[in-house]
């Protein structure tokens, strides 16, 4: 069994075996990050371009560190979401990037489908680092890696995802990944943030009451409320959101006693998650960040098609 994908556009195209390979590879890379010399020569001579057309700190940093620890040359470009504003089309940008012969383009873009678009127009590998409200595959994979570390297996887990599902690419990728690996997903959020047909994406149940969604869950994942994006049409106030959809020590008690709390970040403390929970003993939020580097190392390694894995220098 081997990883056959040239591009990582989403989890939707991945099989259970694909996900298994990525998680196993990430596990084996994780150790490198705790070495004194955090670098292996695996991708020496490869060029990776991190093209971030939408603002990102964590994901960009994580991909950049992942590339550097594999000895690839990583270059970052960033720009406005709208290529039209810059006067250049995404196709022209793609062709210009390609003319410089990169091996992998990691793309973050505000428009759903932009990585798909890019992959049809360039010869190198394309890795989706988040596109619009579509997918964020590396986030879902690091989420699963973290769950596996803490729970031993994904199969049979009850995972509650709470927040703005409509605009969440993390939710979509997590639904695909968790369903393929045998977990059950419970979604919860305001009626204005629950899209039509979301239950068709996988083994999903939709809840309107956070207490019911959390009850007996193994994992509680809180999504960021994008305050900069919200209008009064979707939410009356953040105070009301925190009251009905926020995670706090009281409602967290409804989950299994050993449940873990996750958040893709950046957190709005006091809105979707109280500080007591964010800093509490059940949170694994920084484990997610740590695993993000190993997951992205695995993705870069697997799409680059390097034959033998060299983790020793």
């Amino acid at each position, binding site marked *: 069994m081997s990883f056959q994908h040239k591009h990582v556009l989403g989890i*939707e195209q991945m099989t259970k075996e694909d996900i298994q390979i990525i998680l196993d590879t990430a596990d084996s890379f994780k150790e490198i990050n705790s070495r004194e010399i955090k670098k292996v020569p695996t991708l020496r001579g490869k060029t990776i371009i991190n093209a971030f057309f939408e603002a990102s700190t964590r994901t960009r940093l994580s991909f950049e560190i992942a590339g550097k620890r594999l000895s690839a040359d990583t270059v970052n470009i960033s720009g406005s979401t*709208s*290529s*039209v504003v810059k006067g250049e*089309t*995404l*196709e022209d940008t793609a062709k210009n990037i390609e003319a410089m012969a990169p091996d992998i383009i990691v793309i973050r*873009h505000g*428009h*759903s*489908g*932009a990585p*798909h*678009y890019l992959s049809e127009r360039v010869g190198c590998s394309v890795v989706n680092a988040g*596109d*619009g*409200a*579509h*997918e964020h595959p590396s986030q879902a994979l690091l989420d699963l890696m973290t769950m596996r570390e803490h729970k031993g297996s994904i199969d049979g887990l009850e995972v509650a995802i709470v927040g703005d599902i*409509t605009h969440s*690419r993390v939710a*979509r990728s997590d639904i695909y990944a968790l369903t393929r690996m045998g977990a059950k997903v419970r979604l919860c959020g305001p009626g204005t943030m629950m*899209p*039509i*047909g*979301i239950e*068709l*994406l996988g083994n999903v149940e939709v809840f309107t009451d956070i207490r019911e969604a959390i009850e007996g869950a193994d994992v509680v994942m809180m999504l960021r409320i994008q305050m900069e994006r919200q209008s009064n049409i979707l939410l009356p106030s953040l105070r009301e959101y925190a009251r009905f959809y926020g995670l706090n020590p009281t409602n967290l008690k409804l989950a299994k006693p050993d449940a873990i709390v996750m958040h893709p970040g950046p957190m709005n403390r006091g809105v979707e998650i109280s500080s007591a929970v964010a800093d509490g003993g059940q949170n694994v939020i920084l484990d997610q960040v740590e695993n993000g580097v190993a997951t992205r190392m695995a993705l870069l390694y697997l799409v680059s098609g390097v034959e033998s894995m060299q983790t020793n220098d």
Partner: protein
Amino acid sequence: MAKILIKGGRVISPAQKLDKTCDVLIEKGKIAAIGKGLDDKGAKVIDAAGKIVTPGLVDIHVHLRDPGLEYKEDIASGTLSAVTGGFTSVACMPNTQPVNDNQTVTSYILNKAAQEGHCRVFPIASITKGLKGESLTGMGELKELGVTAVSDDGKPVSNPQLMRRAMEYAKPFGLTIVSHAEDLDLVDSGVMNEGPVSTELGLKGITWVSEDSATAREVMLAECTGANLHVAHVSTKGSIDIVRQAKKRGVSVTCEVAPHHFTLTDEAVRGYKTNAKMNPPLRSAEDMEAVRQGISDGTVDAIATDHAPHHIDEKNVEFNIAMNGIVGLETALPLSLQLVEDGVIDLPKAIALLTSGPAAALNLPVGQLEEGSDADIAIIDTELEWTVDAQKLASKSKNTPFDGWKMKGAAVCTIVAGKIAYQR
């Protein structure tokens, strides 16, 4: 002008309730005779045995892009596309640059069509000046130039009071109001039909209510004012039903549907296909079935293409920022004939939806085939199989979701005012 004798075809003209195998003689741009065994002396003979002879097809919803947007289409290329598809008359929408809201632009279109056009062109003027939705276009003067309908197609007249006044004002001039029924507040920044597919693709959805609520408003205003309302590009189950019920109440309302709305669903958007992006968007399978039901039960009066040419640069971009619309003139006929194949309607009904139906909706003096009428004719081979090659379309623009599709049926000869305008 040469005489033409079309021999031995099955002549179908729904307006005349004509459906028989016979000859059609054309002389001096008019239909001179229809009958069996007509004398072919001095006439160019076209053998139509095994083919269908119909009035030239009529498309009442076309964007010719001229003046102002000639890089997408112009009157010459758009009308060439029309005759290639069997159409001999097109009604063109006013969202040109400048907008067709005055006699100068209307005259420009009519003159250019007379000089360079391959078929008849009927300009539709705007309802409001500059399509701004603020004040009424001078409809009376435009009527004098031959305009028979007004529309702000591409955008709705959002202000209901203004729409009411437009209907009241248009009615005594005999003008039909063509409504682009859409509630922009409900559309918000949606880019495709709202449903499971938009959820999966992470694209912002457009709810069907945005069309239905606007259609309901237009029908109520037409009922209140007594104006002639024509609802453009109906795409939802609810809107079809609203029109159906209105007709039962005796409201003066007609409607059209586009071939893409009875052929495709929002599934076609998968892969972020920008040639499946249009307004109204491709809807659900349930909506598509309802549109077909509306065609079948007579709720729908016309098939109209909403031929919307766009340059490749306007489609070869991310889905969110791609322009809305597709070209339709050269694929409408086989897609409509597919309805016959599928048992939705019979062949004469399909021809009616492409000729007398649209002509009546906009009160156009075409769509007839009888002795003395203008010799606008389509000779159709309903069995001809061909494959769509977008690059070979006569239209300047190639934005079709049907590229590579196998089609059955095509116009093999299109005659406009007694002259052969297209021959396959």
